[in-house]
């Protein structure tokens, strides 16, 4: 703010369009990888939106009754049916892992190798727990309740189809995230980001910004879960 | 030079082709003359634009071909011209759209006196169902379809009992009486299309779609399937006969209602069925004996 000429820059929308339209970069100071992740997430949003809109369309138009979620997704604890118990825990774990991820990004920027690595690892463990509980939920639905992609004892056959497809697609996203989190936890501990060690495939220098990019992806996966949670379990 | 002449020839040729073409639509046999009119209107406006743009281009080719010592004009923008062109185009587009939407509004609103006719499509053929006096068709489902019930009519629906079933591919229509075509498919997508009537709509399995028209010219017309439905698509033809009320009634009287059909089938099958029932009873007896012995 020392440059007196800055006051003469246009403000408001005019200023925004001048900034975006100026030379070299549209988003000033944004790393290439980060920009790329944002655009990818935008594209991925469309994927999940298509899934969810298709689900809503079919659910609104099927003739058979749609299964009642709090019964289907209930668990019996000591003989007492508790609706949505497992899902509540899963959601809690995943949201918590978003918190640890945010801390990992913070320590990454402080170049605190140990704490950054620790929180990346914690996030990975959180994600793994989520995937594990999802596997449990799936196996309960499949083996205990007899839900199949092509039919189920509760009502409309599309229930199983959409449930397995959408949570499966989301679970794949989480699993990919977990794999990358473990890889990056190792990279952080090894000090790749401090020494700028070159990537095995890309031969490009490593940088702590990678942790933030991974964090963007992880937060996105969590956010998508919130929507899936709302549309499948609360509707 | 030659370039300009050939492009000019292409434009003149296109116009000539349009004017002298022997390939043109069939004589219309329904009330949808307005569709033809909107096409003609689009031809005038669109064709005009095509000719103007292309002639302008040809003029430029003749006039501004490369010359070593000439310099092109330097004019990055012309706000006024661009705004004007925008408005003219918008007006032209509105002139096409407005009448189109008016006719579409008519197309989707069925007149109340229209007779409901069900067209049931399958791979690869057509069947028809006409309502009885009540002008109401009984509800139906693919799941009910059997040898005794080729249309899958719901047995509990009283409206279905007097429905007239036509199992041939020939449909007759009464001249000057609007028809609402209700489309059903028992397998894949089809489309009931008679070029002379202009109208069409897909038949979609699982839902009932509709359109309407008023045949106004006697004659026999060919029905074409206009939505790809597998290898037999091109052979999925049928015919529609438009005739005067008297002839139509005569034709109608030749066909059975659903209840007649059921009764007849019942008679035919009763002997066969009785045998089967007996046989089944024997079987179940044997089974129960087996069970008991176990």
């Amino acid at each position, binding site marked *: 703010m020392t440059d007196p*000429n800055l006051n*003469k820059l246009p403000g408001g929308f005019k200023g925004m369009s*001048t900034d*975006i*339209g*100026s*030379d070299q*970069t549209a988003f000033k*100071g944004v790393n*290439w990888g980060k920009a*790329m992740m944002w*655009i990818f997430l935008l594209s991925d949003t469309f*994927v999940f939106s*298509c899934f969810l809109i298709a689900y809503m369309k*079919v659910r609104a*138009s099927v003739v058979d009754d749609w299964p009642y979620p709090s019964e289907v997704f209930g668990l019996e604890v000591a003989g007492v049916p508790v609706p949505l118990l497992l899902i509540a825990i899963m959601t809690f774990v995943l949201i918590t892992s978003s918190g640890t991820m945010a801390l990992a990004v913070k320590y990454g920027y402080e170049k605190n190798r140990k704490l950054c690595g620790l929180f990346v690892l914690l996030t990975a463990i959180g994600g793994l727990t989520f995937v594990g509980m999802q596997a449990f939920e799936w196996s309960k639905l499949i083996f205990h309740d007899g839900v199949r992609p*092509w039919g189920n004892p509760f009502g*409309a056959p599309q229930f199983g189809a959409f449930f397995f*497809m959408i949570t499966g697609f989301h679970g794949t996203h989480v699993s990919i995230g977990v794999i990358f989190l473990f890889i990056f936890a190792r990279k952080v501990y090894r000090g790749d980001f401090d020494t700028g060690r070159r990537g095995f495939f*890309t031969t*490009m220098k490593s940088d702590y910004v990678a942790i933030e990019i991974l964090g963007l992806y992880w937060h996105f996966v969590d956010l998508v879960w919130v929507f899936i949670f709302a549309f499948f379990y609360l509707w | 030079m030659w*370039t300009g002449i050939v492009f000019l020839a*292409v434009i003149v040729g*296109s116009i000539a082709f349009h004017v002298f073409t*022997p390939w*043109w639509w069939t004589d219309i046999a329904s009330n949808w003359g307005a*569709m033809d009119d909107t096409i003609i209107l*689009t031809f005038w406006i669109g064709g005009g634009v095509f000719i103007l*743009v*292309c002639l*302008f*281009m040809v003029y430029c*080719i003749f006039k501004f071909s490369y010359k070593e010592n000439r310099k*092109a004009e*330097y*004019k*990055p*923008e012309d706000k006024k011209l*661009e705004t004007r062109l*925008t408005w003219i185009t918008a007006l032209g587009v509105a002139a*096409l*759209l407005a009448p189109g939407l008016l006719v*579409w509004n008519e197309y*989707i609103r069925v007149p109340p006196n229209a007779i409901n006719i069900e067209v049931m499509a399958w791979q690869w053929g057509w069947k028809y169902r006409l309502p009885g006096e009540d002008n109401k068709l009984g509800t139906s489902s*693919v799941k009910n379809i059997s040898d005794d019930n080729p249309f899958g009519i719901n047995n509990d629906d009283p409206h279905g009992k007097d429905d007239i079933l036509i199992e041939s591919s020939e449909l007759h229509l009464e001249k000057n009486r609007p028809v609402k075509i209700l489309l059903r498919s028992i*397998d*894949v997508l089809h489309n009931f299309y008679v*070029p002379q009537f202009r*109208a*069409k*709509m*897909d038949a*979609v*399995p*699982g839902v009932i779609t509709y359109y309407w028209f008023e045949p106004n010219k006697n004659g026999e017309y060919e029905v*074409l399937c206009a939505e*790809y*439905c597998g290898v037999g*698509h*091109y052979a999925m033809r049928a015919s529609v006969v438009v005739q005067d009320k008297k002839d139509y009634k005569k034709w109608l009287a030749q066909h059975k209602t659903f209840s007649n059909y059921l009764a007849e089938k019942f008679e035919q099958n009763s002997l066969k069925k009785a045998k089967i029932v007996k046989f089944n009873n024997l079987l179940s007896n044997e089974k129960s004996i087996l069970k008991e012995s176990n």
Partner: protein
Amino acid sequence: MLDDINKDKKHSSPRTKSSSISGGERDVDYVRPADIPDQELYHGHSFLTKWIFCQDAKVIGVQYTLTAVFTGVVGLILSWMMRMQLGFPELFPFLTAESYYQMVTMHGMIMVVYLLTALFLGGFGNYLIPLMVGARDMVFPYVNMVSFWMFFVAVVVLMASFFVPGGPTGAGWTLYPPQAIIEGTPGSGAGILLMLVSLSLFVIGFTMGGLNYVITILQARTRGMTLMRMPLTIWGIFTATVLALLAFPALFVSAIMMTLDKVLGTSFFMPVMMKAGELLAYDGGSPILFQHLFWFFGHPEVYIVALPAFGIVSDLISVHSRKNIFGYRMMVWAIVGIGALSFFVWAHHMYVSGMSPWFGFFFATTTLIIAVPTALKVYNWILTLWRGNIRINVVMLFCLGFIVTFVNGGITGIFLGNVIVDVPLSDTYFVIAHFHMVMGIAPLMVIFGAIYHWFPLITGRFLDEKLGKLHFWITFLGAYSIYFPMHYLGFIGVPRRYFEMYNSPYMPSTIGMNEFISIAVFVVGAAQFIFFFNVVKSIRLGKPSGKNPWKANSLEWLTPDVPPAHGNWGEKLPVVHRWAYDFSVPGAKEDYIPQTTPPSEVIEAEVEKT
């Protein structure tokens, strides 16, 4: 930085000595220093890393182009066989209805996705984006390389479906369920599965490439290259890539859902249905849902092909009429506007699909609104020719051919977009003629023009002009005489996708026309081999072109080496001082001023727009 703001204002006088707001003496050639450090590149050492798994966007562009053209030749051969059947039925006993529908399907899918999309975005995009915006390469060369190989695998999977039992799918290129996956449809086993897998791979591969194109254009431009100085080619490719990134997800999702319907027996798109007297196990799905998903992809897809063509043709017309593109800003906004609108028009493919008829009002209106910016682009192209100094060479011929075919196809689009006019014409040959004219022939004209234009840059040699003219006239006149009369088949009411149709009472009159069209198709198809011969010949024996043979302004012609080396710019990145269209500026000595020429070198030029 202040200079930056300045340039948005119009200068009616040359920007000579002092025109800065802070007053005082300032450098007229001032350009903001670099935001980001110079890009580091991986240079291949072996044949494998230099030519096969190469990370140079230019090589990747050529790889994309060659693969896409290969699929295009397959599509061309398929179209020959289809026309053989339609023009001269029963001449070849191996042309059964099954194989005919398989050819229809594969021809459509190959031409739309694997040829046009891959060629415009993968081919031209990779080659031109870094060069035209002044970058050393794409921002993530490694991902870019993987993108090509994903595409390659997708093509291999697609081609493999020709050899599996049952053959490739014959579901029609739109793959409408339930028909696409039930028994009885040709290729309903392995064929459709391979098609769906191939499409999914294509989407994944394309996403990798597309992210690269977008970020390179947004974040890796050289100094002085503002958005409003980019050539329209880049604007076209950029907008098309954004469309692709947002539209392909719908295709991806529908491919996954249909695969599950096929493999696991789910009923997303499958209603209860009866086949040969037996109820199938499906129940309650919605075939129309697939159509919505498909066309939500399918309509932007049309513009994914068209927008790069719009951009490229603008540049070609401008360079070869030695005149700036008329109304540059309008052109940019038209591209962006068409792109945005293209997401709100998809259901105009479904007017007679049985969806709620009330949608017709909305989609007819949005569809016709899109005609306005499109028409403006056409006006601006012909206004660019006006008072230009037009070189009538092969490149310009293809541009002129594009204008004629595009205007023709655009106007028939107004027929089909207007919902009530669509009712009698949809699913007839009118539709076939319309989309071949507007997104088959018109973009192909641009592709050929662009290849004749940029071939000297890629190889350092011109393509043969005489062979080129021969190629153009046969292609243009031939293709026009294929598709112009075909519209009239649609008026008669001949439905599309008919294996044969001569026993209809009103169709005998079409026999002669069908024979004529078929012969024209054989000739036009054969003429493409003139082009291939020209390319092969000119790579070795063509006239050497030297640097910037067309006297163009844009950056790709200003590299230190021709053809450009890996890294494009040698030691120093170029610095941009003006837009790409300073042709025939009054006062300037030459009739062109390259983008890198600083104002101080052409003080006497009366530049209006920078």
